[in-house]
């Protein structure tokens, strides 16, 4: 950065010019996007209050929705199970890949690069694409949702675990090696116990995230609570759809609070 200016006025002129340029660029991006998406900002913003009122009016669960409660709760439970199991299974695989892919523990450089590349590939294929790919082969079954979430999670957790392992103190590992521990002893006695609570924290985070994504996947693949929402929504049973939204929100918040508690307890 330049540290000498002729006068403070010049300094502020340059600063203002930079700020102005950034602002113009952002406005340019905004209006270009607006035109490309064909979105009218004011028109839509003015509709928001009406939308919210409509929402509160129609999405409030009524007595009629209670009759669907059993079914909704069952599907919600299935969705929760799928989010948890896909995360846990993915975390087991990720653990192996992360040990192979972390700089400090990798058996060789080629393996490390393959793991890195693979994880990045899995992560960057959107969950919609996974759902589409899997839907054809696995039909409308829980398995489709499970696999879609599994592949996404595998990508994310492999990266997160790899970074967790690499963040560990390398000296501790060297100390173990100095004592004469072999590779597996190093990994199981030196790395896993150290990284366990951080990794668990990531697993909990992914479960929360997957619960949200599971709704989307369900919507696309016709399974779980997402499908049920779509069903009620399309048959104009907004009260029941509203009940689903409410229950999902409650479940997500409960899950968030629980994992915060667990994180605090294991830290």
């Amino acid at each position, binding site marked *: *950065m*330049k*540290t*000498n*200016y002729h*006068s*403070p*006025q010049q*300094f*502020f002129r340059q600063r203002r010019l930079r700020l102005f340029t950034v602002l113009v660029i952002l406005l340019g991006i905004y209006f270009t996007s607006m035109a490309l998406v064909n979105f009218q900002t004011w028109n839509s913003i003015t509709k928001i209050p009406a939308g919210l009122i409509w929402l509160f009016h129609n999405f409030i669960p009524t007595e009629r929705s209670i009759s669907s409660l059993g079914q909704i709760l069952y599907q919600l439970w299935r969705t929760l199970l799928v989010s948890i199991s896909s995360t846990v299974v993915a975390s087991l695989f990720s653990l192996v890949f992360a040990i192979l892919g972390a700089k400090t523990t990798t058996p060789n450089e080629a393996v490390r690069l393959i793991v890195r590349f693979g994880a990045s590939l899995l992560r960057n294929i959107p969950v919609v694409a996974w759902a589409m790919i899997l839907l054809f082969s696995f039909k409308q079954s829980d398995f489709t949702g499970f696999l879609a979430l599994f592949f996404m999670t595998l990508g994310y957790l492999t990266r997160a675990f790899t970074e967790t392992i690499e963040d560990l103190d390398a000296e501790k590992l060297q100390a173990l090696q100095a004592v004469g521990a072999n590779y597996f002893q190093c990994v199981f006695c030196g790395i896993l116990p150290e990284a366990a609570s951080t990794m668990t924290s990531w697993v909990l985070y992914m479960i929360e995230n997957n619960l949200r994504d599971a709704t989307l996947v369900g919507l696309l693949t016709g399974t779980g609570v997402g499908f049920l929402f779509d069903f009620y929504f399309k048959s104009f049973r907004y009260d029941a759809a509203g009940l689903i939204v409410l229950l999902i929100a409650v479940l997500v918040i409960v899950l968030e609070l629980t994992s915060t508690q667990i994180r605090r307890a294991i830290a």
Partner: protein
Amino acid sequence: MLKVIQLDKTYGSDKHSLQSVDFTAQPGEVTAIIGPSGAGKTTILRSINQLIRDDSGQILLDDQDIRQANKAELRKIRHHIGMIFQNYNLISPLTALENVLHGRLGAKSTIAGMLGLYSDAEKTEALELLKEVGLQDYAYQRCDQLSGGQQQRVGIARALMQHPKMILCDEPIASLDPKSTKIVMDILRQLAREKQLIILINLHQVDIAMEYADHVVGINSGKIVFTGPTSDVDDTVLQNIYRQTDTSESVVSANEN
């Protein structure tokens, strides 16, 4: 002239509370508040510009009672009271020049303040003030790249930018090495003399207080135990100020800070 009359403040516990604090500070003089840690030095200083609301008493700055001011008046009064801190409290990613100009924000309208619109005269003045504290070469440096002593001098320039009647200094040298301490204290004394400012300093280094202050206010457990010219401070007075607490404790806490 600053006149503090019968100031009282109680927290839940007895520590940090003030009992009938009375003292005056004159323009053109350096007034030091000394006493053991926890005696209430910071509470007094922060009561004066009402960062801490006290319970009762009077704080007269040029015969205006700061305690009676409403929100808008208080903002105006605060604008004429500079304050410098142990940890400088500058906005670290901004340049020294911008931090000095922050001294003018209190005098601006909300919009001008939000956008940081300063007049050319203000910009020139900010640079002048940096020159005065010996930092003209660092005007365009980010503050987190400056040393502690340099940051404190930026803090002083920021206070001067307010065109203050008084500068409150809360342990200004507690984090500084002896060389920077001397530079900062010299500047403060010179300001008192040349600009006829009221300089009120919290200190826990007695030797610095003896060297630089014209006037000493000694405080112990929230009560004033001595006020008078520095020349009147002798060992008996010091023992009285630091009684019950071991003097070495204040030295330890000085090093801790």
